[in-house]
């Protein structure tokens, strides 16, 4: 059998895009474009309408100095996404910060705030030519899968796990779902296939001698340099064959990721612990009380790096760095260059009543902004509040004090020499 080095995921089609001047005058034009282009590309009318509203709000809120604003519609299959590109780096993002709405006087920022609220997920990335891309994502809904019946006598693993074709992957997901294996990532085959088609999910599936799926393992992008591992979903009964299957699937995943851009694998909700293969880098409180470990597997040697840590966290981080044997220069961050205007982005998962906060823009008021964000989402009934800080970014440290004041505590340190991720959680 031959392997090929992974090719980057290419966009599925040409994507409709438009550039418009900022401000209210062109907001309706932008909305009409998104609505029309969405319908023309076959996006559900309900989702196209929501994206059109987002485009309208963002354009209306964009200040005159923002320069031309780019709108691009991306069909991610399992989600639709509107990318709004600002070429100016001087953009004030405070309006995206959901916690700010009560302080806002002028309508511009309220528009950005509304847009942020309309999305299921908001991401921010640096634009190719400087500036910023805001990604507003809406999840597509899938009808629940009819229950499949899993064959009685699946054989043991035969040969190396494969990068499965669609039919095999769908069968694995149907069967895993039927027996409750693998966790939420292994739910509804059409969604998994869509995720994989656009490069948001990767899989290895183990087959028995009759080429039937007996187990699978998935991984999905987690931040810029990591992947989150899900599973394995194992369809064999308890015993040596099941254990060997789990080990083979993990080995196949590691081999597939080796020599690529991925620095490590994180497991936030371990369905099944693979002993020896991971290290415990922290603990998260579970939804039903108790705690579960956060697991990590580095793909590359860690040559050491810098961790920018605020005074209140330095004891915890230092102890963790020592426990994990990391080579880190632990430094106190310089004060942020901006006095005011710190902002955080929130990624909400309404089904799990979970929100994850990430710094968007560092400023002197970062701690206060962080504190307000936590209060806001608590007030909205979110049961699980998490925050992810990149310790490679000196600006992120300033948010930590506010998060801790609001009751979050450090839960896990996910090692990455270019910037460890500090995961904070409510009640950790």
């Amino acid at each position, binding site marked *: 059998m031959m392997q*090929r080095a992974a090719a980057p995921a290419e966009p599925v089609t040409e994507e409709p895009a438009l550039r418009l001047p900022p401000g209210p005058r062109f907001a309706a034009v932008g909305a009409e474009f998104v609505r029309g282009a969405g319908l023309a590309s076959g996006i559900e009318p309900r989702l196209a309408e929501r994206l059109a509203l987002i485009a309208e709000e963002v354009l209306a809120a964009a200040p005159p100095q923002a320069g031309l604003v780019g709108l691009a519609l991306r069909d991610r299959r399992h989600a639709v996404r509107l990318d709004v590109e600002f070429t100016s780096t001087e953009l004030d993002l405070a309006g995206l910060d959901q916690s700010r709405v009560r302080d806002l006087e002028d309508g511009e920022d309220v528009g950005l705030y509304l847009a942020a609220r309309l999305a299921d997920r908001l991401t921010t990335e640096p634009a190719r*030519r400087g500036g910023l891309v805001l990604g507003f994502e809406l999840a597509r809904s899938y009808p629940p899968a009819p229950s499949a019946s899993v064959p009685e006598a699946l054989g043991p693993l035969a040969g190396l796990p494969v990068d499965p074709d669609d039919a095999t992957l769908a069968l694995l997901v149907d069967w895993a779902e039927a027996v409750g294996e693998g966790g939420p990532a292994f739910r509804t085959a059409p969604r998994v296939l869509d995720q994989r088609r656009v490069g948001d999910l990767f899989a290895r599936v183990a087959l028995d001698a009759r080429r039937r799926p007996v187990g699978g393992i998935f991984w999905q992008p987690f931040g810029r340099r990591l992947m989150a591992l899900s599973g394995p979903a194992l369809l064999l009964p308890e015993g040596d064959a099941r254990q060997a299957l789990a080990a083979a699937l*993990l080995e196949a995943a590691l*081999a597939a990721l*080796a*020599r690529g851009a991925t620095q490590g694998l994180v497991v936030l909700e371990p369905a099944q612990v693979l002993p020896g*293969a991971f290290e415990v880098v922290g603990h998260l409180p579970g939804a039903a009380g108790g705690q579960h470990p956060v697991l990590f597997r580095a793909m590359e040697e*860690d*040559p*050491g790096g810098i961790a920018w840590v605020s005074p209140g966290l330095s004891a915890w981080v230092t102890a963790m760095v020592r426990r994990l044997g990391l080579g880190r220069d632990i430094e106190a961050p310089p004060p942020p260059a901006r006095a005011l205007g710190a902002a955080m982005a929130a990624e909400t998962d309404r089904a799990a009543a979970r929100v994850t906060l990430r710094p968007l823009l560092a400023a002197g008021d970062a701690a206060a902004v962080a504190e307000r964000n936590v209060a806001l989402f608590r007030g909205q009934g979110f049961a699980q509040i998490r925050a992810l800080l990149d310790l490679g970014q000196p600006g992120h440290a300033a948010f930590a004090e506010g998060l801790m004041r609001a009751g979050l505590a450090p839960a896990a340190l996910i090692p990455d020499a270019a910037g460890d991720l500090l995961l904070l959680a409510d009640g950790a």
Partner: protein
Amino acid sequence: MKAFALERLVPAHVRAFEAYVPAPPDDVLLRRFGVTHLHRLNNNENPLGPPPAARAVLARRDAGEAALYPQGDGWHLRRTLARHFDLEPEQVILGNGASEVIAFVIKTFCEPGDNILTADRTFAVYEWMASFSGIEPRLVPLLDHGFDDVGMLRAIEGRTRVVFLCNPNNPTGSWWDHARLARFLAAVDGRAIVVVDEAYAEFAEAPGFPDSFALMRQHPNLVVFRSFSKMWGLAGLRIGWMAASPPVAAMVRKTSISYSVNLLALEAARATVWDLAHIAATQAHCRAMRAGLAALAGRLGLEMLGGIGNFAMLRMPIPDTVVHRRLMARGVMARAMTSFRYAGWLRVSFGDAEAMAAFAAALEAVLAEG
């Protein structure tokens, strides 16, 4: 500047490629890991250093000569090597390490749409250089930790331009003997260039190790790589070489970079050719260190893998990347092999006795932590 669209100017295969980031210098590592000394067992360097004649050449150099260019294609060294291996000087091409020679070969024979063939678990640079040159690397899985001749023959097709064999293989130490390589070349039958990377050939003591220069006379598609970094202790000067049949060498010369090998490297390398006492001393050192490592592996209950070369691999009960870090924190650098697709394995070079003892003590302590 109005619109510098960098991405538009960069080929997709370069954009998609992840840059290799070497480890930082020792002073930075010492500080970060909080240690005062680092034993380097991660790069397969020779703890004996260069042979005496090369040391003498280096000691004699006048710093003022740094202002002058070296001779552009290693005139004297090529003749010295050619005499020793019974080749024509034109068959020998030098590079800034064998690594650079890999690039010459890919540039000479491949264009977009072509592919190269190698193993999944071998020296990474063949795969990398192909990838960032827009050439597809096709990887045939190792079979029982060795290159799979049948699998590789099956994988050769119309657009396969170069087959890279690593013999002995880094990191497994596995190797093909003369008869097996000869059979493989006969079966390839000139359909592709076959490169045999012999960076570790001088460590071979077994009588059946290939005489590739002899095979080259029957198989003009055979290219042999050698390095001065391993046996010859000149890794810091960056010099390696290849030999090929005259017509193949004439092609590769077109894409080779003149003046890429520096003055000191050329002269030191020439002085090493072919110091048998140095080879014997290094081999004896490797034998002793290999035996010591095998004893350690036995004591700790670790599987060990190795063959020819100044390195061996040990299978860890915990992630290799964790062991790597914890060893660093104890002043020992070994190589975590997940990136070689050997997840869970650690590669250790045969350093000096003190370094090997430090490694043994540190590994024992790390594994005791669980």
